[in-house]
C-alpha cells in the first residue's frame, strides 16, 4: 500500500481548461520525490489534491489506500503536510510560536504537548531562538523555515514542499537540501517537492516526475531522467551543470563516469585524473 496514489487523476478549474490530465502518481514510504516542470505545468494544482484541498474532476486519489472523504479529511491533512511557495500565505499568526502551534492546536492536543511539538519543530528547522518574534521581522529564509516548522509540528508522514527554494539565498538552499535529506533519513518521512532548480533535484530526489501542461511526460530515477536532455529542453528545463559537464567530457574522450551529485562528480573526476596519471 502506497502512502499517496493517484489513478488517472484529472482536474479542471471552474470555467477553465484542464489543469491536470490522467495523472498516475505514487509516493511510497520514506521516498524523496521531485516533480519538475515549467511554470503553469500543474505542479501546485497536483499538490493541492494530496490533502483534499482540490477534488479530482475524474479519477481518484488514495491516501494509504483510502479515498479522501469528509470523515477522514482531518486525518489526511495531519498525514500530508503541505508547505506553500509563498511563506506569507502560510504564516498567519502574530508570532512565530503561535503560528507553529496553529496546526497542533487544531489537532486538539493539550498545552504541554503543543508546547513540546512547537519547540521540537523549531529545533528541527534550526530557528528555536525565533519563537517570540513577529513574522514581519524575519528574512525570507527564516519565514520559509517557520512555514516548514508549522507543518512539521503536525507530525505528518508526508511532507509536500511547493517550490521550496524560491527566494532563498545559496546558503538557504544548501540548508534546505540538508534538511530535506535529514527528514527522510532521520525521521523516515516521505518528501515530495516541486522545483525548477534541476541541480537541487540531483542532490535530493530518488525519483522524478516531469510535468508539462498538466500531464506527466516522463518519470524515473535521477539517471533515467537526466539521460534525456532533449526531452528536458523541450519542457523548458535543463540537465544540471555537473552531468552536462561530465557528458561533454565523455564526448571528448575523457574516461570519466557519469555522476549527478556534487560528491559523486568530484569522485568521478578524481578517479578519471588518477586513472590518467
Amino acid at each position, binding site marked *: 500500500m502506497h502512502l499517496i496514489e493517484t489513478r488517472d487523476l484529472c482536474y479542471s478549474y471552474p470555467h477553465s481548461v484542464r489543469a491536470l490530465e490522467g495523472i498516475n502518481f505514487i509516493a511510497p514510504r520514506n521516498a524523496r520525490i521531485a516533480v519538475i516542470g515549467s511554470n503553469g505545468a500543474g505542479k501546485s494544482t497536483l499538490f*493541492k489534491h494530496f*490533502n483534499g484541498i482540490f477534488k479530482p474532476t475524474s479519477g481518484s486519489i488514495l491516501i494509504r489506500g483510502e479515498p479522501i472523504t469528509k470523515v477522514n479529511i*482531518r486525518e489526511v491533512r495531519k498525514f500530508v503536510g503541505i508547505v*506553500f511557495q509563498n511563506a506569507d500565505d*502560510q504564516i*498567519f*499568526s502574530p508570532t512565530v510560536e503561535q503560528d507553529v502551534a*496553529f*496546526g497542533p492546536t487544531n489537532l486538539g492536543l493539550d498545552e504541554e504537548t503543543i508546547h513540546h511539538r512547537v519547540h521540537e519543530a523549531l529545533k528541527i528547522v534550526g530557528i528555536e531562538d525565533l519563537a517570540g518574534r513577529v513574522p514581519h521581522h524575519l528574512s525570507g529564509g527564516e519565514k520559509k523555515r517557520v512555514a516548514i516548522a508549522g507543518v512539521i509540528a503536525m507530525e505528518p508522514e508526508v511532507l509536500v514542499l511547493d517550490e521550496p527554494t524560491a527566494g532563498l539565498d545559496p546558503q538557504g538552499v544548501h540548508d534546505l537540501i540538508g534538511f530535506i535529506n535529514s527528514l527522510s533519513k532521520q525521521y523516515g518521512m516521505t518528501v515530495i517537492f516541486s522545483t525548477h532548480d534541476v541541480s537541487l533535484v540531483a542532490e535530493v530526489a530518488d525519483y522524478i516526475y516531469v510535468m508539462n501542461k498538466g500531464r506527466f511526460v516522463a518519470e524515473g530515477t535521477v539517471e533515467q531522467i537526466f539521460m534525456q536532455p532533449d526531452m528536458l529542453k523541450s519542457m523548458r528545463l535543463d540537465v544540471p551543470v555537473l552531468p552536462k559537464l561530465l557528458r561533454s567530457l565523455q564526448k571528448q574522450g575523457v574516461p570519466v563516469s557519469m555522476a549527478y551529485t556534487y560528491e559523486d562528480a568530484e569522485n568521478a573526476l578524481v578517479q578519471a585524473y588518477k586513472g590518467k596519471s
Partner: protein
Amino acid sequence: MIEDLFFIEKQAYRESLMHRLDARVKIILAFAVIIAIVAVPYSIMVYTVGATFFLFFLILWAVSKLPLSVYGKRLVAIVPIWGIIILFQIFFKNKYYTDYHVLYTLPLGISIYTESVEFASILAVKFLISISFIILLSSTTKMQDLLQGASRLGLPAEIALALGMMIRYLFVFGYIFRKVNETLKTKCFDAFDRHLPYRYRLRQLGYTIGTMFIRSYEQGERVYTSMLCRGYGRESHLFITKKPLRGFEWAFLIISLTFIIAVPVTIWLTALRFF
C-alpha cells in the same frame, strides 16, 4: 497612515519598565481610567479629575522613557476625528443644562452658548484622558502582546484568532504598500505632480488601489487554503499559554486601580476643585 503603523510598532519595541509590564496590567489600567473618567458626571468636577489623571498619565509616560513628541504626534493624528465632534458641541444645546446663555451670536442665527462651551470642554477633557491612556497602552505594548493579554483576560477565541490574523496581514500589506509606492517612485510617478494630467494621475491611483484589492482578495484565498491544510475548523484558536502576573505587577495593578477609583470618589465627596 501605513507609516504610522510602523511608527507605533517602533515605539512599542523600546525598552522600559512600562514596556516590560504585562499587557493585561496595562489593558486593565487603560480601561479603568476610561471608565472612571466617563463615569464622572458632566460637571466642572471633571477638570480636577482629568488633571489628576493627566498627571498620572504623564508620570507613566515618563517611566516609559518615550519622548513627549511621540505622544504629541499621535494625539494630533486623532484630532480630526474627535476635535470636530467636540467643536460642534458649542453650537448646540444639550440635555445636561436647563438654562442657556448666549456667549456669541454669529450670522445666520447661529449662537455659541456658555453652557455648550463648558460641555464641549468637559467632553474634551474626557476624550483627552481616554485617548492619552490608549496612546500609552499602544505605545508601550506590542500588538501581539496586546492580543495575548486580551485573550488571557477573556477575549473570545474566535475574535482573538481574527484579530491575530488582522495584525499579521496589516503588516504584510504595509510592506506590499511600501513596495508599490517604491515602484511608483522608481517609475517617476507622483500623484501630486501637477505636470502630469489630472485624469492620468487619478487613473493610475485607481489602478494601484484596485491592484491592492485584488492582491488582498487573492492573498485571502491562499491563506484560507493553507489554514485548511493545517486543520483549520470551527474549534480553531490561537495558542496562548497561561502566564501568571508577577508580584510587582500585582502590586502596581492594585495600587493603580485604588488610585483610579479613589480620585473621582474623593473629589466628588470633598468637592475639591483645582479649577
